[in-house]
């Protein structure tokens, strides 16, 4: 019998009705007994230096203002970045601690008032003068610091074989430099926090992807006992990495609440978010490829140059795609950074692969043309049989099949190979392809479940659902394994009081938290079977073929309700814990999800306007836990890929270390009308090494390649290769007929 909540079924989001009816409480919506005061961030307007004078008197006298918190009266904090030996998500995020300005937008005051309007108005009355210091605001090819490690613990440099020699000996070579701009995560829900402090305990309602580190960072920053801090984040309106670590308004809300011992709410205005939450740094990527005359890659070289925010150890592994997608005799991948005085640079959806693939899959396309080969055929001819960067075997490898299946479904054979071969009226038409890979990660996770004598199951974990569907797929895992209807399963997430989980990020959430839940459910099954074995009436039952269906333990022709078994345990409920942690499967195997993406674009020959006409992706990400939420994840990444290829760019004004387009009128994301028909296909193949569920990461998969497919289609349409993203019409115009 098929359970509509079985793993894989396209179960509607269990939290959907709450969200569409407004009943899901996002961070800023938590109702306290007393309405919180409201804080507004006053931002520094210089990139670096010190506060020379700060006059808050007019703001303090403004209507409704309760306090103007500055470094002069803020509660004690640990210096920014301490302790040294911890990771960036738990090191102190001190602000309003001294007169030092770390970057443009860095908070210099928090105006706290009775209403948002009063706080915002008074913020404009705070007068600050500065002593500017020379600031470094731009990084490009001059980046020359070698980071200790890259995000995810990867080595800054990887060298296999003799690159220079292989490249020097190659029949066909390519040496090109691509660039990608600063980019914002632009989550729908701005970063928001309500903090409440009673002199002993600190409660923080916020929007954060990783709950455990959020507790620790507050403990470190504010010198509090972590046991006295409760962080709640049950619903999150998108994070995309910008909410991995705790962000500025959360620290400020806590400072305000501790200072006043009254609850304080701080919601970042959209303009704040661009500087008071992390962004993705710009990249320069030099790519050198060498191939034999018949199109076999012999040398792959990737040099990445990016900014790194001062005192903040994040370096993006931009070379990730170059390291593992294709076979090669020699590989050289290096990352260099330059310390800059601009706001925090951190993970943004698919760090490494997203912008790495944008450049690398474009360069691969260039190489295919240079070798006179079809871009799909060229890729297929260079499939690796082991991970080129580590030499490890792949846990599974399905890229070639994704490419073949995608090409067939897309109608790739209808495409003329030469650029600028297709026209429709005044529109130049082009077709592009890109390979997609994304590393698969498993993170230690625990959970606790309780089956009550009324048949209901609750699972607790400090996991988060950032809009991806975590509540839903966890419901399905429990319902499937224990044979319960979805309505009897309740998933409780987003609370630091719950067992430590992986949190959301790096596409590891579903596989990791789901595997911990699976473990708990399997243990519960054992417990239930043990209870059943003790029953006289089931003595002769077929325990070998035990199944869990319809709320019952089924033993051949006998069955017993789970509620009955709970009662027989002598308790009101049964509780077990489950866990998962990465083991040797992740040491032994190189693990990735795969995909192939295809795009058709038109380019207006008069104006250079690029519009995507259709996209198609074939993806292989192990076992699919919910076909509907998985599709939504992939769709979102493909849409974002279109944005990365054509639209997104945070414009940095070097003079001020500030982004100038800090709203959604000018920071362009794709809108509905930019999104054509998007077709998504799964090649469902459980991976026996990835995790006990056989699933693999999916959240960051499609963004790793979607943009390059679009960019390659633009080239095919026009014969123009734009190497500085985004491909806006001004970069095409002069080359058009």
């Amino acid at each position, binding site marked *: 019998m098929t359970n509509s909540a079985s793993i894989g079924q396209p179960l509607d989001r269990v939290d959907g009705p709450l969200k569409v009816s407004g009943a899901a409480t996002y961070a800023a919506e938590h109702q306290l007994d007393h309405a919180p005061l409201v804080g507004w961030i006053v931002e520094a307007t210089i990139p670096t230096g010190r506060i020379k004078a700060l006059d808050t008197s007019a703001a303090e006298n403004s209507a409704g203002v309760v306090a103007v918190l500055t470094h002069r009266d803020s509660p004690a904090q640990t210096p920014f970045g301490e302790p040294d030996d911890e990771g960036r998500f738990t090191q102190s995020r001190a602000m309003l601690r001294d007169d030092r300005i770390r970057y443009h937008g860095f908070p210099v005051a928090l105006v706290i008032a009775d209403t948002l309007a009063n706080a915002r108005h008074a913020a404009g009355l705070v007068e600050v003068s500065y002593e500017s210091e020379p600031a470094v605001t731009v990084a490009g090819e001059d980046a020359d610091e070698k980071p200790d490690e890259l995000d995810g613990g990867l080595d800054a440099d990887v060298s296999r074989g003799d690159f220079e020699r292989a490249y020097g000996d190659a029949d066909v070579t390519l040496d090109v430099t691509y660039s990608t701009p600063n980019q914002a995560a632009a989550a729908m829900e701005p970063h928001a926090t309500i903090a409440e402090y009673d002199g002993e305990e600190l409660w923080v309602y916020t929007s954060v992807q990783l709950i455990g580190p959020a507790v620790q960072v507050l403990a470190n920053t504010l010198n509090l006992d972590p046991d006295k801090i409760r962080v709640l984040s049950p619903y999150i309106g998108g994070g995309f990495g910008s909410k991995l670590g705790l962000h500025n308004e959360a620290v400020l809300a806590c400072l305000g609440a501790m200072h006043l011992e009254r609850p304080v709410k701080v919601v970042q205005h959209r303009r704040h978010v661009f500087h008071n939450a992390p962004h993705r740094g710009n990249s320069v990527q030099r790519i050198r490829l060498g191939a034999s005359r018949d199109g076999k890659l012999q040398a792959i070289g990737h040099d990445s140059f990016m900014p790194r925010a001062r005192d903040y150890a994040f370096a993006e592994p931009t070379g990730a795609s170059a390291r593992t997608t294709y076979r090669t005799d020699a590989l050289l991948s290096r990352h260099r950074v330059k310390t800059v005085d601009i706001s925090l640079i951190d993970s943004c959806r698919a760090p490494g692969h997203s912008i790495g693939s944008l450049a690398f899959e474009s360069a691969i396309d260039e190489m295919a043309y240079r070798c006179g080969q079809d871009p799909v055929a060229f890729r297929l001819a260079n499939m690796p049989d082991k991970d080129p960067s580590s030499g490890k075997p792949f846990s599974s490898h399905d890229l070639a099949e994704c490419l073949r299946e995608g090409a067939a479904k897309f109608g790739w054979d209808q495409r003329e190979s030469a650029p600028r071969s297709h026209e429709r009226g005044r529109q130049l038409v082009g077709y592009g392809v890109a390979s997609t890979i994304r590393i698969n990660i498993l993170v230690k996770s625990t959970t606790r479940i309780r089956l009550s004598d009324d048949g209901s199951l609750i699972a607790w974990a400090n996991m988060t659902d950032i809009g991806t569907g975590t509540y839903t797929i966890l419901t399905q895992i429990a319902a499937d394994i224990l044979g319960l209807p979805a309505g009897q399963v309740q998933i409780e997430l987003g609370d630091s009081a719950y067992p430590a989980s992986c949190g959301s990020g790096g596409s590891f959430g579903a596989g990791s938290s789901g595997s911990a839940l699976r473990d708990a459910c399997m243990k519960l099954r054992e417990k239930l079977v043990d209870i059943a074995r003790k029953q006289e009436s089931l003595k002769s039952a077929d325990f070998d073929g035990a199944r869990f269906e319809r709320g019952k333990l089924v033993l051949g022709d006998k069955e017993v309700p789970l509620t009955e078994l709970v009662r027989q345990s002598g308790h009101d409920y049964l509780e077990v814990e489950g866990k998962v942690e990465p083991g040797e499967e992740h040491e032994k195997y190189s693990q990735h999800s795969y995909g192939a993406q295809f795009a058709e674009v038109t380019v207006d020959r008069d*104006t250079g306007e690029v519009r995507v006409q259709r996209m198609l992706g074939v993806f292989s990400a192990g076992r699919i836990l919910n076909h509907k939420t998985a599709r939504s994840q992939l769709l979102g990444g493909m849409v974002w890929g279109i944005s990365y290829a054509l639209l997104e760019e945070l414009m940095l004004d070097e003079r001020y270390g*500030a982004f100038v387009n800090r709203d959604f009128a000018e920071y362009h994301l794709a809108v509905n009308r930019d999104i054509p028909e998007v077709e998504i296909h799964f090649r469902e193949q459980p991976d026996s090494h990835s995790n006990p569920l056989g699933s693999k990461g999916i959240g960051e998969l499609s963004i790793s390649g979607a943009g390059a497919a679009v960019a390659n289609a633009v080239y095919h349409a026009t014969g123009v290769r734009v190497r500085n993203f985004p491909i806006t019409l001004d970069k095409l115009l002069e080359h058009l007929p």
Partner: protein
Amino acid sequence: MKPFDYQRIGAVEEIDADAGERSSFLAGGTNLVDLMKHEIETPERLLDISRLELAQIEDGDQGGLRVGTLVTNTGLASDARVRERWPLLSSALLAGATAQLRNRATTGGNLLQRTRCYYFYDTARPCNKREPGEGCGALAGHNRIHAILGASEQCIATHPSDMAVAMVALDARVRLRAADGSQRELPVEELHRLPGDHPERDTVLQPGELILGVDLPAPPPGRHIYRKVRDRSSYAFALVSVGAILHVADGKVGSVRIAFGGVAHKPWRARKAEQALQGQAATEENFLKAADVELADARGYGGNDFKIPLARRTLVAVLRDAARATEESTP
């Protein structure tokens, strides 16, 4: 937002004669309220005119149309008369903003949108429009969306309206009521001004002067085309837009009207191009010549240099399409 007084106006006669510099009229509020939140606009008093009886579209004299100032952008774009006889206006309106904004935005308010510039919206940066004499952040900064025609060293911002571009091409006129109750009329073309030494003033309106409505004269013959070139398909301001009405007879330009958007501090009527085309053969070569005449004085500021060739190419494309269409419809 700076605290302000709010007064609901039931009839225009209730507007004080001293409604002056420190007052602003509130209609749809789609631009003004945003600017007030940023304290870029800080009126001491808001006169809410949204309930005035000025939301009608009526037939005017000699085949024209009288549009009340409170007619929404959606209402005007979807009016059957406008769609049939002034399709340039309808398509320009529908190219602007989003459906939600068009439902709220009014005809008078659309005309009075402030010009666009990143630095105007960022109160931490210098802007002569916001604070006369402070300097211009855009001149040596990011100016991809900025003006190529009629700018000054004081200001290179662009007027964002699509609707106004169509109205300027259509020789529409605004009806104005001064605070003292007297009335006057102006071509829409003369409503907005170039920045010169006073970029703080976007229009020639006097303090307290209210737009009562817009009069559209009967449309000239010919094909109407509004072409908006932008980075994404919707919800983006024009990099360059062209509104044109072209009538071709026997292969020659009988009449032509052209206006540009996104290139100047005001909707830009391309009278030099019109003149160059009058009576000439409707050929690609002549379209190019006309574009070059109009753009002879155009200058870029780095980031917006591309707008000069873009304006040329877009104008030629629009005229080409319009010529083909009028030739086809005239046997």
